[in-house]
C-alpha cells in the first residue's frame, strides 16, 4: 500500500480555497499511485478558528463542497479534517476527521481530547467526541485519532484492542522550544509516541502534521510513518511543506504479531474491569 502524507498549510476560515487545494493534492496523490492520502487536522478550515468554527462547520454527508472531495476519492482513500455540525445536533461543533474511500464516507472520528490550556482553547469552542472506534478500511482494520488524542495512550489502546492494524493521526501540532537541533523540541514528543505505539501495538502509525503559521504560531511538520515494531519508515521535513509518499507492507503487522505476541495475549476484559472499578469509584 502507498501512503501520502499531505503536510501543508491551510487558509484560515476559507473552506472553498482549502477544498480546491485538497482536490489538487488528491490528483497529485493519484498520479503518484497512492492508496491513501492523510490530510492534517482541520485541513479544510485551518486550526485557530475560535468564533469562526460555527461559520465553517459543515455536514459531510450533505455539504456540496465536501461532497466534491468525497466524489474525488475513488481509486484511493483519504483522511480529511473538518469542523463538523450535523443536522441531528445543530449548534454543536466537533473537530472531526473523515475517512473517505470509494466515493463515500466510511468513518468519522470526533476529537475526544480537546486541548484547553496555555496556548490552546479548543473546549471553549468545540464539543468533545465520545468514542474511539476502529473500522474496516479497504486495506485492513484502521483507527483515527486527532492531534492530542494521540498523546493519550488510552486512545491508542482502544484502537489497538479493537484490532486496528493501522493507527492514523491527523494533527495540527504547533512547535515549541528552539534550543534543540533542526526541529522544535516538541516534535520529539510525537515521534516518541509514534515509536512506542507502533512497537507495543504492533501496528503501523501514520501521523500527518501540518505546517504554516497562524497568529504567530508555527506548525511543526515532521509527519511520520512508523512500522510495527517501532521502525521509522519515513519522516517528512520539519516546518517545510511536503507531500511525502511511501509504500508500506501490511504483512509487517502479521510478522510483528507473530514475533511479539502482545496482541494475542492482550486482555481487554481485564483492562475494562479495572477501568470500570476506577470510573465507578466514588471520589475520595
Amino acid at each position: 500500500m502507498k501512503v501520502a502524507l499531505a503536510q501543508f498549510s491551510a487558509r484560515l476560515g476559507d473552506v472553498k480555497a482549502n477544498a480546491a487545494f485538497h482536490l489538487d493534492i488528491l490528483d497529485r496523490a493519484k498520479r503518484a499511485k497512492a492508496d491513501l492520502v492523510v490530510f492534517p487536522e482541520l485541513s479544510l478550515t485551518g486550526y485557530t478558528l475560535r468564533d469562526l468554527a460555527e461559520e465553517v462547520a459543515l455536514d459531510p454527508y450533505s455539504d456540496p463542497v465536501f461532497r466534491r472531495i468525497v466524489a474525488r476519492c475513488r481509486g484511493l482513500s483519504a483522511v480529511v479534517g473538518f469542523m463538523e455540525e450535523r443536522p441531528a445536533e445543530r449548534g454543536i461543533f466537533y473537530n472531526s476527521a473523515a475517512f473517505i474511500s470509494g466515493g463515500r464516507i466510511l468513518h468519522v472520528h470526533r476529537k475526544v481530547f480537546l486541548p484547553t490550556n496555555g496556548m490552546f482553547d479548543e473546549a471553549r469552542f468545540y464539543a468533545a467526541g465520545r468514542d474511539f472506534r476502529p473500522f474496516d478500511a479497504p486495506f485492513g482494520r484502521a483507527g483515527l485519532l486527532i492531534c492530542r488524542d494521540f498523546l493519550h495512550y488510552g486512545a491508542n489502546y482502544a484502537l489497538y484492542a479493537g484490532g486496528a492494524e493501522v493507527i492514523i493521526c491527523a494533527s495540527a501540532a504547533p512547535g515549541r522550544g528552539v534550543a534543540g537541533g533542526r526541529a522544535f523540541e516538541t516534535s520529539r514528543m510525537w515521534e516518541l509516541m509514534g515509536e512506542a505505539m507502533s512497537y507495543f501495538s504492533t501496528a503501523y502509525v501514520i501521523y500527518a502534521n501540518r505546517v504554516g503559521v497562524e497568529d504567530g504560531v508555527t506548525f511543526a511538520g515532521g509527519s511520520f510513518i512508523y512500522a510495527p515494531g517501532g521502525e521509522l519508515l519515513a519522516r517528512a521535513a520539519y516546518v517545510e511543506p511536503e507531500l511525502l509518499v511511501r509504500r508500506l507492507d501490511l504483512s509487517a503487522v502479521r510478522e510483528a504479531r507473530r514475533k511479539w505476541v502482545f496482541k494475542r495475549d492482550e486482555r481487554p476484559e481485564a483492562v475494562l474491569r479495572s477501568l470500570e472499578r476506577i470510573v465507578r469509584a466514588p471520589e475520595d
Partner: protein
Amino acid sequence: MPPKINPDFVEKILVRFIHDELAKCGCLKAVLGLSGGLDSAVCASLAARALGPPNVLGLVMPYGTSCPQDVRDAEKLARSLGIRSEVVDIAPQVDAYFSRLPAASRVRRGNKMARERMSVLYDRSALERAFVIGTSNKTELLIGYGTIYGDMACAINPMGDLYKTQIRDLAAHLRIPAAIRRKTPTAGLWPGQTDEGEIGLIYDELDEILHGLVDLKKSRKEIIGAGHKPARVDRVLRLVRGSEFKRRMPPIAKLSARSVGHDFLYPYDWGR
C-alpha cells in the same frame, strides 16, 4: 539563563513567520525603524532574508544630531544588507510640540520621540503599502521597557519571544557587524541613557530572573534561592506586574452579549 537557542533554526522559523504573515495579506513589503542598535539590526536582517532586500525599507529617525554614530551605523548596516534606507530627522516635529512646553521632563520627551517615530513609520507604511515590523524583544515586553503606541506599535513582531541575551546569539549568527553587537544597549531617549542603567540590572541577570519567573514559573522565593538579590527580584516583579497594560488591548466596558475583546473572538489571521 534562558536556554541557548539554535540560531540557525530560529532564523528559519522567524524568516518563515515574516514571509508567511505578510504573504497572507498579499503584500511582501516591510518598513521598520533602524536605530543603529542590535534589535533593529537583527530584525532588518531577518526581514531582508524573508522578503528580499529591495522590499525592506529601514527608516533612520534621529532626533537632530544627537547620535551621529548611530545614524552612520544604521546606514552602513542598510547598505550591507542591501535594503533601502532613508534618514528622517524627527527634531522639527518634536521641537515644534515642546516649544510651548519647555518644562517637559526627559521621559515625556523620550516617549514623544518614540511616538513620532511610530507615526512616521505608519505614514510610510501607507505610502509604500508595506507593513511595520516591530523590534521589541521578550525582555522589553515583559518588563514594559517600551513606549506604548510608540516603539511597541507594529503589524507583526518576529522577536517578541526572544530574550535580549538570545538575540545577541542570533545577531552573531546573522553576522551583524561587531560595532553594532558590542554597543551598550540604549533606547536613545536622552543622551547618555542606557537600558541597563535605567532598569537597574544587567541583561544577563534580568533575563535569568525573567526566564525563571515566566518560562519556568518559579516563585519569588525560588529565584532568590538561586542567588539573586531580593531587591532585584522584587524590582523585576514590580516591572512585570506594572506593565501588563502595555501588552494588552485596553479593556472594553462590557454591556452587550457579544462584545469586542470579550466574546467576539476571531483569529488575527482571519480569512488569510
